[in-house]
């Protein structure tokens, strides 16, 4: 039976961040990945915000195979027959260091794994973790590929389902309330065409979110990110929202309908879909976080529920990278003490609480409840769309005065409802 200092289940961002941080500290670190290569099983929307994690991994970012730095942000309220878009572009988005990049995980994760290996971490691919090994209620290793592998501590970085932390008794299977399903196509397109269509220069990129008809009024939204030579286009839909709306089309049809929207079709025209991917995303926020540690085990990334949707930004990858980093710091601390008990590993939570990770989760703990208001996904896109339709309309006869037009949309009852929604939004 082989013994390591640390076994990491899953070569995603959390696992690789932990391995990268631990390696080079004279520890034997083993990363187990069930895919053919790191990233083979991983899916993002995706965009990575570098600012919160830049200093945790000094020197890592210059050569990272990221796609484009995002200089155009777009938010589109989509009603059935019209849409209203906000486009934002600012000097700070063009300034270095760039705040966020589009990213493709198969490329990025593979590269990050190479960096961790270069520092001395050991990576085994094509190996599934089947069980955790317990002794006196303490996790002492895993069963993987028919072998028992032991370690002082196991870090579960096995993604949103985290069967590893479930088997370790740290969580029960999740409820659809706390999760969304993301479905995406990667559509190859000539870089010059991408630049022309999105008004970009060189390696600049664009990001857009679509609310409303993108998900046919269901909780969620559509997204579009420009990569170097492709576009990532997809939707994210709240699982519970899909379950409750029996009349909604099936999930794959939602993406097809989104692609055919007049706001989208011209953007991807002439492109070739190269890959179709889907993944569940944790969206329950702070209240749905799983247990972060136990005797001989830590949980990081999606496995711990560390993804956060606050409307205009949907983030997960920075939390995965940072939690992997802090899990590694915890292991180093525990190694010093020679004690990997739950009590000794509890400093992990403290690290996360002192960092942006749990600060964000606490600050935005009301976001999942507030954003689940169905009015955001049907009523408001309709309302704003109708208002602009009236404002822009030039009828054959005389045009109505603007104030009565606006007044018609904002009835007393409507304003009262908006006031109530706004009061909720202030909780975010």
């Amino acid at each position: 039976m082989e013994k390591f200092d640390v076994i990491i289940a899953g070569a995603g961002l959390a696992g690789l961040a932990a391995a990268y941080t631990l390696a080079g500290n004279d520890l034997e670190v083993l990363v187990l990945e069930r895919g053919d290569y790191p990233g083979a099983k991983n899916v993002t929307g995706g965009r990575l915000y570098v600012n919160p994690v830049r200093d945790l991994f000094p020197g890592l970012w210059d050569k990272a195979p990221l796609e484009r730095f995002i200089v155009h942000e777009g938010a589109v309220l989509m009603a059935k027959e019209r849409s209203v878009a906000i486009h934002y572009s600012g000097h700070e988005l063009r300034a270095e260091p760039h705040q966020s990049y589009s990213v493709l995980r198969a490329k990025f994760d593979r590269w990050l794994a190479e960096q961790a290996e270069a520092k001395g971490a050991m990576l085994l691919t094509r190996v599934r973790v089947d069980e955790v090994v317990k002794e006196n209620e303490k996790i002492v290793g895993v069963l993987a590929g028919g072998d028992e592998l032991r370690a002082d501590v196991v870090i579960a970085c096995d993604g949103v389902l985290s069967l590893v932390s479930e088997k370790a008794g740290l969580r029960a299977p999740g409820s659809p309330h706390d999760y969304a399903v993301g479905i995406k196509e990667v559509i190859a397109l000539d870089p010059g065409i991408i630049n022309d269509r999105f008004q970009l220069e060189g390696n600049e990129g664009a990001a857009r979110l679509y609310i409303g008809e993108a998900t046919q009024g269901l909780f969620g939204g559509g997204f579009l990110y420009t990569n170097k030579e492709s576009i990532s286009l997809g939707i994210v839909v709240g699982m519970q929202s899909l379950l409750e709306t029996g009349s909604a089309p099936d999930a794959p049809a939602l993406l097809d309908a989104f692609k055919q929207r007049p706001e989208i079709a011209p953007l991807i025209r002439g492109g070739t879909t190269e890959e179709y991917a889907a993944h569940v995303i944790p969206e329950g926020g702070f209240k749905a976080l799983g247990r972060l540690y136990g005797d001989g085990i830590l949980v990081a990334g999606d496995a711990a529920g560390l993804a956060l949707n606050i409307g205009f930004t949907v983030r997960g990858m920075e939390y995965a990278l940072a939690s992997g980093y802090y899990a590694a710091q915890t292991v180093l601390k525990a190694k010093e003490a020679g004690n990997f008990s739950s009590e000794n590993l509890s400093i992990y939570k403290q690290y996360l609480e002192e960092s942006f990770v749990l600060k964000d989760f606490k600050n935005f703990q009301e976001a999942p409840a507030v954003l689940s208001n169905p009015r955001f996904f049907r009523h408001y896109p309709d309302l704003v769309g109708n208002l602009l339709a009236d404002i822009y309309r030039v009828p054959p006869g005389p045009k109505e005065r603007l104030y009565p037009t606006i007044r018609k949309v904002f009835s007393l009852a409507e304003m009262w409802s908006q006031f109530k929604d706004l009061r909720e939004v202030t909780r975010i």
Partner: protein
Amino acid sequence: MSHTEALKAKLGLDVFKPGGEPHIRIRPGMEKDPRLLQTIRLCPAGLYSTAQTGDVVLTIDGCLECGTCRFVCGDEVLEWRYPEGGTGVQFRFG
């Protein structure tokens, strides 16, 4: 092209490596469970369908390993594992 054919064509773009045993199984006696019926609509790969008997059947080929069915159905309805190492979908972009 019908909706189902279009979805199959999309899945045909992905790289899948064949494995041994199916990694998800409907537990015996649960074939008509309402959660399973709902999964038909939610599975992004459209792998669940109803047979003439009214039983829900699962075709595992084309599974994206996204986890949706496990969250909808839970452990009672589905025996759910990941495919063996080195098998199943291998995303080239992700």
